[in-house]
Structure formats: C-alpha cells, structure tokens
C-alpha cells in the first residue's frame, strides 16, 4: 500500500436484496483529491461509511493510511476526518463549543485546539457567530460548521460527503477555496458529490459510480476527452443514458 492513502479491492456491500457497492476496486494516492461522482443512491456514501468504519463490507477489503479498516478501525479513525452528509451539529451548543467537543474527542491539546478553532472559524466565516447556539445558524452556516468539526484535528485524510449540498453559491465557493487549500497542505481528500462542475473544478481524478458499480475512472480532463464530450455531466449521460441529477 506504499504511496496509497486508500486502497479498495473487490469491495461488495449488500443490504438484504440490494447491492449498494458492487465489486469496486480503486486506489487513491497520498495528497490526491479524489472525487466519487454519481446520483443519489449510487453507493458513494456507503463506500465512505465502509472506509471510516461505520459499515462492514460484505466482502472485499479496504485500507486507509495503511491500516485495514476491519482489523484496525481505531488507527483509521485517528487518521481521518469525515464531513458526513447530514448537517450534524449539536443545536444546544454554540459553534465554538461544538468545535471544542470534537477537538477533545480527538484528544487535541488545549492550545492546539484553541489555535485551530480560531483559524478554522475565521476561514469558514463563522468567527462573529462562534458564540451563538448552532440552532440559530442558517443551513449554510451549519454545513460550514460541520466541515470544521470534521477537520478540527488536522486529519491526514479527509472524507467530505456532499459538503456543499444545499449551500448558496457564495458559501459553496468559500468551501471550494478551503478544499483547495487543504490539498495544497498535502491532505488526501475523498469528495463525494453529484455536482459535476464541483468535481471538474476540484478533483485530480474522479470515479463515476452508478448502481454500486465503478463505471469510469480518470482525471476529469481525460474522461471528457476520451468520451469526446464537453463536460463530466455529458460523460455520465454518455455512459448511462441518464442525467445525473434526474434522480436527485
């Protein structure tokens, strides 16, 4: 697994009679920004859940940061930061208290936690609202806070599951800028999205998932040129005969 931040081999996940992940194999390099694209229900979140130890695979194997996710889940959890799809923050805590809680759950020392909290709240534009209860935040503010909770401990590998869904354009571009900065810092990032323009803007490589299968893998530019189309949206249409957002 040398050189790979994430290695997935023949991964399968069945939920009763539904195959959510169907024999997927892929490798994400250290420092790479990898996009998992596909419509809702394609299996993107299930792959993320398996990689962060929330769901056990039916078969196949997966490793994160050199650790087997089934044998050493705690080692994996120390390396990763996950921005889950739900806007999950404690409504009765202030933005600052939410951040401190998750910093403490990652065993951060007090000084480092304070420094990173101040820096991340500033970068996400939440400094002035940091002492307000999260229940008073708008949807976009909660999403940005959720992103801070995922990254407060400065993880080597970040899983961002639809981080910009339901965000206004201004907030979305702020998050894009932040993700680009993370990449510059050398973080490995796995981004799931069904916004094709987001993937084109940010990702080094993308994997297109449909009905649990990996149907295309490569850089956005390569996939567009190979399929002789204008953008990733058209790539998806050419491969599946459907628009990616029809099922959204």
């Amino acid at each position: 697994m040398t050189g790979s931040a994430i290695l997935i081999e023949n991964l399968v996940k069945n939920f009763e009679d539904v195959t959510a992940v169907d024999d997927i194999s892929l490798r994400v390099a250290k420092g790479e920004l990898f996009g998992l694209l596909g419509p809702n229900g394609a299996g993107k979140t299930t792959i993320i859940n398996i990689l962060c130890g929330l769901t056990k695979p039916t078969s196949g194997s997966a490793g994160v940061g050199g650790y087997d996710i089934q044998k050493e889940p705690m080692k994996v959890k120390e390396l990763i930061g996950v921005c889950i799809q739900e806007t999950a923050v404690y409504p009765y805590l202030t933005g600052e208290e939410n951040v401190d809680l998750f910093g403490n759950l990652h065993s951060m020392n007090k000084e480092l936690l304070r420094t990173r909290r101040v820096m991340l709240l500033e970068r996400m534009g939440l400094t002035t609202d940091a002492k307000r209860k999260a229940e008073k935040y708008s949807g976009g503010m909660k999403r940005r806070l959720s992103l801070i909770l995922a990254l407060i401990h400065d993880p080597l590998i970040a899983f961002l599951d639809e981080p910009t869904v339901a965000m206004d354009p201004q907030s979305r571009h702020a998050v894009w800028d932040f993700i680009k900065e993370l990449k510059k810092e050398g973080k490995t990032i796995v981004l799931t999205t069904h916004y094709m323009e987001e993937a084109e803007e940010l990702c080094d490589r993308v994997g297109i998932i449909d009905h649990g299968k990996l149907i295309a893998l490569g850089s956005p530019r390569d996939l567009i040129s190979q399929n002789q189309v204008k953008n990733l949206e058209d790539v998806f249409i050419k491969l599946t005969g459907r628009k990616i957002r029809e099922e959204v």
Partner: protein
Amino acid sequence: MQFQRVIALINKEMKKTVREPAVLFMIFLFPIVFVFAFGSAFGGGGGNQPIYSVGIVNTDQGNSVNASQIFITALSNTRILSPQIYANNQTAQNDLSQGRIQAVMIIPRDFSKSFASYKTEPNEPDRWINSTVTLYLDKGSLVATQAIPPIIQQVLTAIIGVPQQAPSTPFRLETASLVEVKAPSAFDFIAPGMFTFASIFLIMMVSQSFAQDRENGMMKRIRITPTTSTEFIVSQALSYMVIALIQAAVVFIMIYLMGFRPAVGIPVYLFAFVLMLLFSLSNVGFGLITATIARSSGAATGLSFLFVLPQLFLGTFVGASLSSSAQIAGRFVPSYYITDALTSLFLRGAAITSPTVLLDLATVSVSCIAILAIGIILYAKYFKI
C-alpha cells in the same frame, strides 16, 4: 479510556440538560410541580391535615341522654371531620354522589338507647342494646375510604368513655377499615416513593437523547472519532448519575419544604443519595434498551413507558395502594427496593446496617448493574446509526 473524551461528553450532556427546555422541565420542574401537587393533595405543606366533610343523617330518637349530639360534637372536635347535618338520606346521598361530601353517616334510631344501655351495664354485653352506625363513603377518593372509618371508630370509642383497648362496645360501624390512623400525614407515607417516582423518568430522557442523536447524525459523527463505546457509555452513565443526584436534591428540598422532616441523621440522607445513584444506572440501562428497540425519538418516548409504568405503579408510593398480587409483582422492579429501603430508613427508623436495608441495597446493586449491562450489550450489538 481517555478521560478527556469522557469529560468532554459529560460537559456536553450537562449543557444539554441546562439549555434544552424539555430536558430542563423533566429534570427540575417536573419534580417540583409533582412534589408540590402530590404534597398538597396528601396533606403536606406545614402539616395541615385534610378536612373531610361527613354528611350526617340523624335518626336517633334519643331519650334522657342525647348521645347522638355528643357524638356529632365529638366528630367536629377532631378537626379532621366536618359534620354536615342532612334532613334525610336521599339528599345526603345526592351530595355524596356529586363529590360535595366525602361520606354519609346514618345514626340509628336507637343510638341513644344503645349508649344508655352501655352506661348502665358496662360489664354486661348481653344486656346492651346494640346498634349499627351505617357509613357510606366516597368511592372516588382513596384517601377518604381509608382515613374516615377509623377516625369515626375512634370517636365512637371515645364518647362512650372506654379505653382504646376495650374488648367491645354496643356500637358497630359498618365499612370500618383496618387502616390505622397515625400521627403523620399521608404525605409522610408517600414522600420516600417520590424520590423514586421522579427519577424513573430518566428512562425516557436517555432513550430520547440516544434516538435523537441517531436521527440528527450525531451518533454517526461521534462513532467516526476515536471515541470508544466504553468511553461513550461511561460518559452517559456518569452524566445521568449527576442528573439523578441533582434531581434527588430537588425532590428532597421540595418534600422538606412541604413538611417532610424524618428524624434521621446525615448518614441516612447520604445513603439515600447513594441508592438514587444506583437506581439511575438501571434507568440508563432501560433507556439504552428502549433506544435500541425504537426507530425514532417519538417511538422511544412511547416505548419508554414499557419500563416507566411498571416501575411507577409497582415500585413507588402508588404500589402501597395496590392489591397484594400487584405488590408481589412489584418485587420484580428495581424501584420497589429503592422505595422500600427509603421507607425503612425514613419512616420505620431502620439503621443503614439493618438486614432489610442491606438486602434492598444488595438487590438494587445487582439488578441495576445487570440492567445496565444488558442495555450496553444490546446497544453495542443492535443499535443502528
């Protein structure tokens, strides 16, 4: 286990308790309202006894001694009963059925004759003219049915001028109960059960909290961190033990203000708080079991009553009023042993080291830890995020 994580989660839980209105109500306001309401109803608050209105239909034809008047005056002097004179039984029964009075008493026509026969020949029962005082009670009032007959019986015994332990009198009181009237108010008897009563609702709070965290994704978020299940459960158990302690203190202050002043020392109070801490463990356990079964926080609220109601009805002060079979069933719920131990300590004056209290403590310890363990196992195995 990292204490930094445990403390952070406890801190979060405490902030939730203080900041969430619904939680705050269940923990602090509910015990205050509940103790005040029950305390007032059962004669707490400055030791005032309730006053029961008794309708009297006097058919006594009297003779040289108007014994019925002596009887009515004596009833009035108890300051617990307030005699209301009725011309006929029908009017009195009508008021009884409307709840305007708590009892109707028919003084028989030969009441004075009966009284005089006893005074003439107190040691010759065969020569007494026996008579029966008939009593109709408000069946909608548990307290009235239990409290009024023995008071009247005592007054009857007193007016005739015989010692309490006299073998017999010419008067017979129908519907007389065996309940003994004691100096403390009814509130004193229910006070120990109030500690248990308030704490039982922790089951609902725990199950709701876990189910809500699952619904809003927080459970998922915490499981992604390196926090272990042990750290999480320990933090929850400790949080709810602190809450139970605060709740017990609130209940204690309230029942103290309402007039409950048991003659026991500080060690007994401390021991009572230890019992409540143990009891909180079983409530966390039941809460975990409920949250594991429930699919949503709404369902958790409903399902929690599967554990709340048996504990309420079989194991608190309510249980004392139930049938003997229900009281036997009470022995299968932890709250029964808590109430029993607290009653032994506060009312019966038992020592902490007395066999009854120690047996209750042992039973509570084993059962509460076992319930918590079952809750943790089910949560770890079947709780879906």
